């Protein structure tokens, strides 16, 4: 399906990441935002409210993040596409309802503009400490999709993509941005509406009385209906059968929850996207996502100048994790270098998937400026001297 032309500001703009995110949401057909103000994601709420009259969108500032996500889930069931924007502390409060979103298989988009944590941390400083939280933060088992943009243009593109993925797989999708990307201003190209692909909601088309809210279709995804159309359906956060009725035993738990994993795991190859730069001949590959991947690209150039063959693997999709690609690369390269604005999260996954075939070096950007190339380079230079693959993550202290 093509996007509706309404509200799409086709053209070239100078936008911050947060603003680009709202434009992406509007282009994707999002007409509902519920949120609670938090640094550094406020501009998303502000811009959405400014743009609301034009596209007749609904905006509500709820009393906290818990209710913001709860209201979002409710609105989605009325047929709206919805988004909420927050930062670390807010994401922590949303955890319970991410679980509800997964259990009710409700498509929605959650933008997390990451700041320095834990707790209040430093509100106006970039961080990437919520990556594991996005995957594991709610209780119980679930799989989630998380995208990580590294520029305002990607904020725009990934927001549309996030809506499409959430509709296709009926799952909450997280956009794990960071303060750096959210506040930097750059050129953003908004294409004409007809060039924007929109995934329509998978609506049920059969007879009303035969509707089962969790009956999986041939693509393994249950079709949806909107409230108020006489389907009289029931859904619950309890373990349930196809009809949405609760049954609490291990058979139903298996029947209900295992497919929640499969519906993502079986489509990983369709979902996962990454960008590779010069990995063909690389000895060292920088695995990065979000703001540090900008630095990674610069580091490659410099390293190549000094004769070290360095490539880059930028993860657009962080969850599900591109296990296969890492495993393949691990057999070819000497080492992975993972720069992250935290104290080691995705690097654990890189270590896991390299099966001892390559060294894994962690460069913490929690204590550095995003644009610090030197430490990245020095890590590359040191790891190239390693004779064999060491067990465990290496962290060189500078």
């Amino acid at each position, binding site marked *: 399906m093509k996007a509706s032309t309404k509200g799409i500001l086709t053209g070239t703009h100078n936008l911050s990441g947060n603003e680009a995110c709202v434009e992406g949401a509007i282009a994707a057909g999002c007409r509902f935002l519920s949120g*609670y*103000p938090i*640094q550094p994601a406020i501009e998303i709420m502000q811009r959405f409210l*400014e743009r609301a009259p034009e596209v007749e969108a609904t905006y509500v*500032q709820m*009393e*906290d*993040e818990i209710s913001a996500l709860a209201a979002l889930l409710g609105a989605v069931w009325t047929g709206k596409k919805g988004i909420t924007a927050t930062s670390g*502390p807010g994401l922590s409060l949303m955890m319970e309802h991410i679980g509800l979103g997964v259990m009710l298989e409700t498509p929605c988009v959650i933008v997390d503009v990451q700041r320095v944590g834990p707790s*209040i941390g430093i509100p106006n400083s970039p961080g990437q400490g919520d990556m594991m939280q996005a995957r594991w933060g709610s209780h119980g088992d679930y799989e989630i999709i998380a995208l990580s943009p590294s520029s305002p243009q990607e904020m725009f593109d990934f927001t549309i993509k996030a809506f499409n993925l959430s509709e296709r797989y009926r799952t909450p999708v997280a956009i794990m941005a960071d303060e750096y990307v959210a506040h930097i201003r750059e050129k953003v190209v908004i294409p004409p509406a007809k060039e924007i692909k929109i995934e329509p909601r998978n609506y049920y088309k059969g007879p009303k009385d035969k509707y089962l809210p969790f009956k999986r279709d041939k693509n393994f995804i249950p079709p949806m209906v909107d409230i108020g159309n006489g389907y009289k359906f029931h859904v619950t956060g309890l373990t349930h059968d196809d009809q949405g009725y609760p049954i609490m035993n291990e058979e139903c738990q298996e029947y209900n929850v295992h497919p929640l994993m499969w519906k993502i795991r079986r489509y990983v190859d369709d979902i996962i996207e990454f960008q590779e730069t010069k990995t063909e001949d690389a000895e060292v590959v920088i695995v990065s996502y979000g703001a540090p991947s900008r630095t990674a690209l610069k580091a490659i150039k410099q390293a190549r100048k000094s004769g070290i063959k360095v490539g880059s693997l930028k993860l657009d999709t962080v969850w599900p994790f591109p296990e296969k690609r890492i495993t393949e690369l691990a057999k070819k390269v000497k080492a992975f270098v993972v720069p992250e604005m935290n104290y080691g999260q995705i690097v654990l996954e890189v270590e896991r998937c390299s099966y001892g075939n390559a060294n894994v070096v962690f460069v913490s950007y929690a204590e550095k400026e995003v644009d610090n190339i030197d430490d990245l380079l020095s890590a590359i230079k040191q790891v190239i001297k390693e004779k064999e693959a060491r067990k465990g993550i290496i962290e060189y202290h500078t």
Partner: protein
Amino acid sequence: MNPIITAFAKGIKKSGVKPSRISVPSDIPFEPEVVKHLGVDFFHTIRGRAIAFGTGLKLGNPDLIVVPFIGDMMTIGGNHFVHGGRRNMDLLIICVNNFVYREIGGKSAPIQKCEKEQTTTQKFSPYSTFEKPFNATHLANSCGAVYTARWTALHTDELANSIAEALNKRGFSVIEVLLPGPNYYTSIKETDSNLLNFYYKNSVIKNGEAPRFVTITPKEKIIVGKFIDKERPTFIEQYNAQLSKTLGDKFTPHGGKNG
């Protein structure tokens, strides 16, 4: 100097309470330099949890006098506010109301022009423009607070008196302070003094007014004053009374005489 802190310092002095007995959990991040000379223990808690945190402080050590500062006008922490009142937990809540009222007593507030034209009035408004804020006093009273008062931050002496009085009062006391500012949570350093002056001038003192009638409305002046001052057993008193009744000698009252 922040007018609230000035009044708070005055109030502590007047009350005769030793500052070291006072603990302040606050979701407003006052600067260390601002708090330092108060001589109290200060905890900058996460958004909305100052009252719940204070409940723990008080029950952990009943000798403490706990004064939560809340800056979110009962948005994220509204539940703790009503339940604190219901329990009559021995806390003095300083509720900083930084909502920008655009019209008072039929007159427009001196809001900066650019701000007026913006679709979102403030960067950090507790409520969006098209919503009515709470009548905090009424809400506090309906859930059981024993002491409620409201002042603008410029009523320094009245505010200090109220604080002194409430520091010596047992139970859930709420003092609402009007302090318009562009931000909440992040800092209340940036006070809009024009607006504050406007509120001060357009307020009228009505002590003992029924809480139901003190809603801040565009057409009337802001009613300030001490509205409620009643007695009700606090949580710890009730706890000690009930458990002594059922358990008799096996129970040692919590917090001794100071509870």
